[in-house]
């Protein structure tokens, strides 16, 4: 959990309050000006398409954060998202309402893309095979899986994923977001209960809302609170009628992408088993990135995969492709293949993307005949641990557990968000800054994603730049550890 000092909380609240007040004043003046101008005949009788408060955040806060030649969100790139990439320079003529691309690019160190095992760029084993499958199967099948969209590649990948993850069977989808949104309604309906972690990803929230089951939230990563909620809910039953719940599913994530911390999986599984609830584990960020052989959070924490009922994951992060999967028992997968809307109606996963995942898994398992997979896994673990410990030594407030390749650095103040981002870009390091609504209002942060394709020099350069910018912006909230030369002096004395 983040420890927020009072002084910083007050100053952050004050900054947001000021921005809010200015925003409201400008809105007020805008209303006056609009009222004096007459509205056009065409729009008479129509309520405005974007109502006042909804895009207040967009108009007043987001644009101010962008208000500088080098802005923070949606930066386009002109090369593969590898360890170093080309960020396109943009300029704006109208105070950042619209941004125009130039053809100039700057080569920057990439600390923002989800490229944990370095498969993002062209790879010597994967890319030739992908191009071959592209020529054979073409970019799309134009058909749903259940119609004419299943090719050999899809069946091969499903078996491979099931074997890799450690479950009897698996089913594929073309997009990770749709996997959650379409599977959860297929598993539960009216009369079911979903208990989800308070910091779960938007796709899980959407899937839970799309099913007509009831949803309850438990405190982030707290098995004791989960137990309380379970006891209360089972004893009370469904709202109003008090009938017993049909089934209860607890949804947690392997690595939480905004916190960088691992889920307390063994304790949560124990609680779920005791109360006969089903578990659903979303390993979007942890599959392929943690664990001795890359098999995810279950391997790292020593949990038997039979204890987790449904394991979900995506191929976007560690495998450098797109799409998602669900791995579970044979019966559940058969049922899902018959019911799940994404399997019946959505275009099947693009065959070259399927081949990329097949090749990437083969590299990780060492079945391509080399030890590159094991090297990549070891390197991403070393890099993450090194980077995190160095940042903590410098005095930054870094979240996340050891071994997790995602590390957020706390910024808090809204003015520091664009300052940090732009300064880093000026010194050729690309970082990602996240603010409300992806994080709580007061807890804005910069999020670093480490990859196995970062070399030691890359990391040193990144650390140097972040340290300089951190001093400039003032985010070293903790005292830095004294440097080693002090010990040397003592020895000499």
């Amino acid at each position: 959990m983040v420890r927020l000092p009072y002084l910083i909380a007050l100053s952050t609240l004050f900054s947001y309050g000021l921005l809010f007040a200015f925003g409201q004043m400008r809105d007020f003046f805008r209303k006056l000006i609009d009222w004096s101008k007459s509205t056009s005949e065409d729009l008479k009788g129509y309520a405005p398409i974007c109502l006042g408060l909804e895009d207040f955040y967009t108009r007043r806060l987001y644009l101010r954060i962008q208000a500088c030649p080098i802005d923070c969100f949606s930066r386009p790139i002109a090369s593969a998202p590898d360890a170093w990439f080309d960020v396109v320079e943009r300029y704006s003529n109208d105070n950042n309402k619209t941004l125009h691309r130039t053809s100039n690019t700057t080569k920057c160190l990439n600390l923002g893309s989800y490229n944990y095992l370095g498969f993002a760029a062209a790879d010597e084993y994967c890319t030739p095979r992908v191009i071959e499958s592209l020529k054979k199967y073409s970019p799309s099948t134009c058909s749903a899986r259940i119609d004419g969209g299943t090719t050999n590649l899809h069946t091969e990948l499903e078996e491979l994923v099931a074997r890799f993850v450690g479950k009897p069977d698996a089913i594929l989808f073309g997009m990770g977001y749709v996997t959650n949104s379409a599977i959860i309604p297929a598993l539960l309906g009216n009369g079911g209960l979903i208990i989800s972690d308070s910091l779960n990803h938007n796709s899980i929230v959407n899937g839970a809302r799309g099913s007509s089951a009831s949803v309850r939230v438990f405190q982030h990563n707290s098995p004791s609170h989960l137990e309380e909620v379970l006891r209360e809910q089972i004893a009370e039953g469904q709202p109003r009628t008090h009938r017993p719940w049909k089934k209860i599913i607890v949804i947690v994530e392997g690595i939480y992408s905004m916190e960088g911390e691992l889920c307390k999986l063994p304790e949560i599984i124990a609680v779920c088993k005791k109360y006969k609830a089903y578990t659903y584990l979303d390993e979007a960020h942890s599959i392929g990135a943690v664990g001795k052989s890359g098999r995810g959070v279950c391997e790292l924490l020593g949990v038997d995969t039979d204890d987790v009922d449904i394991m979900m994951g995506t191929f976007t992060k560690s495998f450098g492709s797109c799409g998602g999967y669900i791995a579970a028992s044979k019966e559940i997968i058969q049922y899902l293949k018959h019911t799940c809307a994404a399997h019946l109606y959505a275009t099947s996963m693009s065959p070259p993307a399927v081949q990329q995942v097949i090749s990437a898994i083969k590299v990780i398992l060492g079945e391509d005949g080399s030890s590159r997979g094991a090297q990549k896994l070891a390197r991403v673990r070393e890099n993450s641990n090194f980077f995190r410990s160095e940042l903590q030594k410098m005095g930054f407030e870094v979240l996340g557990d050891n071994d997790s390749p995602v590390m957020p650095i706390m910024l808090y103040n809204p003015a520091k968000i664009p300052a940090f981002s732009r300064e880093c870009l000026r010194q050729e390091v690309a970082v990602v800054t996240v603010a409300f609504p992806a994080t709580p209002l007061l807890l804005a942060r910069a999020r670093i994603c480490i990859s196995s394709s970062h070399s030691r020099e890359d990391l040193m350069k990144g650390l140097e730049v972040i340290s300089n910018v951190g001093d400039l912006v003032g985010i070293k909230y903790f005292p830095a550890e004294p440097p080693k030369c002090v010990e040397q002096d003592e020895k000499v004395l």
Partner: protein
Amino acid sequence: MAAAVISMTTAALDWVSVVFDAPLARAVVFGVHIDGHLVVEVLLIAVILFQLTRKSYKPPKKPLTEKEIDDLCEEWVPESLHPPITEEMKVEPPTLESAAGPHTVIDGKKVVNFASANYLGLIGNDKIIDSCVASLEKYGVGSCGPRGFYGTIDVHLDCETRIAKFMGTPDSILYSYGISTIFSVIPAFCKKGDIIVADEGVHWGVQNGLYLSRSTVVYFKHNDMTSLEGTLEKLTRGNRQAEKIRRYIVVEALYQNSGQVAPLNEIMRLKEKYRFRVILEESHSFGVLGNTGRGLAEHYGVSIEKIDIITAGMGNALATDGGFCIGSARVVDHQRLSSSGYVFSASLPPYLASAAVAAVNYLEDNPTVLTTLRSNVSLLWKGLSDIPGLTIASDPSSPLVFLKLKKSTSSSKCDLELLNKIAEKALREDSVFVVSTKRSVLDKCHLPVGIRLFVSAGHTVSDIKKVSDSLRRVAALVLAEHI
């Protein structure tokens, strides 16, 4: 007797008047005359206050004890995660061993493929494959991030500009998956309290979007303009509140569930009369309808600015994946921050974006491919016109040809069994690949089931003859007892 009563009443009245004339009753307190009835009223108020201050009797609330909760938890038995597996759930779809073009290979045999929505025949097109290869070598496969965090690659921006230029709108926004486009766009614009009038035959993606938006949804009869007019009239008549809330009509240009084409000119007339906004789902009509493939607006000669929001999936005519949405600049900009499928999901793989650009270029340079497609469709109509037991239910201009049973059995489950038998026999015996409607239990659409054929510009005359002959033969066999 009467005298006694009279005397008693007079005595009572005297007593009452004495009380009223009592000295206390004539007191003057602070210059205010106090009459007798004030005493009674004060007493009454005192009694009421006394009653109010008394606590009312509530039966005591007894929360469950720990032991009782333990017992309840022990007793509770959840249902299984999946219902019992039936035979039909075990059926696997056929596996393709080559590209899903007009001819494909299933189980080692060459098969004529009418199951892929490859309308322009772009699967296997060399130019598209070359641009994909160049993209793969430069950018790799995935984009490794959402659009806001370095997942915006210059090919995405090129693709958005190209599509906007092709359709004639100021801007467009690209989504990473076809089906997620519509169910992200609708909740971005429609919130709780808005009114949406939708066709009852819309596909699952639209239904999910309508459900997630939490707006009030009213369905009208499939493709029936009188029903639509009646619904709009009912919703707006005498309802002054209706002016202040946002109102939308959601229709598909070419319905996946029936092959019908929405009459856009009628819809525009109704929209302008009742002041509703239109959201048009063009997944199967983009690149197909209209003289140059610009969709339903071109087909009916309606100017594109009049339609508020158009969404389309690119997994059909453009033979790639992903989706896009076009509209005015305000509409597109709003989605960049509030559309969940855009903000919280990884962006489209760059090679698919370059495939989309190449496909749009091809369509613009070769508009004759549409004439080939249309002649194939009319040829197929001729061939299927005399099939025993089956009738064509789709629009003559639709390349998605929908055959339904002339005489339906009692339940759609039995209908589906017969249709599955036809499709399976056609594949096994005549090497012709057609598909029946697949409906999920979560789908709310109740339109009749049927057999779908996706006609492509890459099909030859002999392919079309083969499929018509095959269906005629198989339908006669399977539906013999049924007719």
